[in-house]
C-alpha cells in the first residue's frame, strides 16, 4: 500500500501529536486505521484478533511517537508495529495450542485440485504461510525481514512462500502441468 500521507504532512501531524494535540493524533489514526486493520486481518486468525491488533498498534504508536524521526515513511513505521503485534499474538497463541509447522495439512483433502477464488484460497492457507505470502508478495517485505518479524530463519520464509504458492496453484485450479 502506498503511504496515504505525504511525508511533510506526516511530520507536521506527528510533531503536533507529540505536543499533545489529539486532533493531529486522530488524523494519523484515520489515515492508517484501514490499512492497519487490513494487514491485521491477513495476519490474524479472526476479525476479533485483528481488531485487537488495530487497537494495540495505535496504543503503541501513541507511546512511541518520539521514536519516529521522519527518516522513513510513517506508514512503513506503523506497518512494522502492526505486523509485529499481529505476529506476537500469533506466537503467543502457538505456545498454548500446538499447531504443526510447515506442510501441516498434507493428509487433509486439501491437495485435491479445486476451483476457489483467491480470497477463499488465501483464507484456507495455514496462518504462517498466509502471513509470509502477504508480507512478501503484498507488503514487499524481504525474506530476511519476515524471518526477523516471525523469529524464524530466512530459509523458513522462502520455503513457506513456495509451499503456499504451490497450494494456491492447486486450489485456484489454474496451474499448467509441467
Amino acid at each position, binding site marked *: 500500500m502506498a503511504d496515504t500521507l505525504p511525508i511533510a504532512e506526516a511530520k507536521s501531524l506527528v510533531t503536533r501529536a507529540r*505536543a499533545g494535540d489529539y486532533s493531529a493524533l486522530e488524523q494519523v489514526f484515520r489515515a492508517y486505521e484501514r490499512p492497519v486493520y487490513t494487514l491485521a486481518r491477513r495476519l490474524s486468525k479472526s476479525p476479533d484478533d485483528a481488531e485487537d491488533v488495530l487497537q494495540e498498534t495505535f496504543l503503541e504508536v501513541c507511546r512511541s511517537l518520539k521514536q519516529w524521526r521522519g527518516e522513513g515513511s510513517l506508514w512503513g513505521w506503523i506497518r512494522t508495529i502492526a505486523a509485529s503485534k499481529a505476529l506476537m499474538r500469533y506466537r503467543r497463541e502457538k505456545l498454548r495450542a500446538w499447531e504443526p509447522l510447515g506442510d501441516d495439512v498434507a493428509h487433509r483433502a486439501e491437495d485435491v485440485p479445486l476451483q476457489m477464488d483467491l480470497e477463499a484460497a488465501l483464507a484456507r492457507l495455514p496462518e504462517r504461510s498466509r502471513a509470509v505470502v502477504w508480507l512478501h508478495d503484498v507488503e514487499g517485505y524481504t525474506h530476511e525481514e519476515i524471518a526477523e518479524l516471525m523469529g524464524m530463519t530466512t530459509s523458513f520464509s522462502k520455503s513457506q512462500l513456495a509451499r503456499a504458492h504451490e497450494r494456491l496453484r492447486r486450489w485456484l485450479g489454474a496451474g499448467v502441468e509441467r
Partner: protein
Amino acid sequence: MSESRHATGDELLALRDGEGSGWARDHVAGCAACAAELQRLEQVRSQLKALPSFAPPRDVWPVVLRAARADRRRRRVSLWSGAVATAAVVALAFAVMRHAPAPEPVDVALQKAMAESAAMEQMFESLHPDRRALSGQAAGVVADLEDQLAQVDAALNDTVAWRSNPVRVAGLWKQRAGLLSALVDVHETRASVAGL
C-alpha cells in the same frame, strides 16, 4: 531447454522477485511450461495486491484517545513524583553534608527554584494542555520545550549529581521553571480549546 528438469517453485519465485539464478533464467527462456508458471506467479501477486481492504467493524479511536490521555497524565505525574523523590534525596544529602545548623545559600537557592518549578507546573496543568489544539508552529515549539524539559528531568533524576554539585542542581530547577513558564506562555497565547 537447458538441463532435463523444470524450474522449482523456489527458483521461479526467486526469478519473479528479480533474484533468480542464471540457470533458471535460461531455462525459463526456453521452456513454455515454466514461462507460463512464472507468468501465473506474477499474476497471483498482482491479484493479491488488488484484493479489497477491510474496514474495521468498530471505531476504536475513543479507546485509543482515552489511553493516550491517560498515558500523558501518567508521564506528568511520574515527572512530578520523581521530582518529589529527588527532593527528599537532596534533603537527606544536605543533612549529611551540612555541619552548621544555618542553611547554606545553595539550600535557599535550591528551595526557591524548586518552589518556582512546582508553581509553574501547577499553572501549566491548570491550562489542561491536552485539551488544546495547536497550530503546527506552536506544536513545534511545544515539542521542543518538552524535549528540553525531559532532558532536565533526566538530569535531575541523577541523584549522584545532587550530592556532588548542588549548585548545578539548583540551576537545573531554575531551568525547569523557565521551561514550564515558556510552555504556559505558548498554551495561553497560541492554543485554542479543542473541545476534545
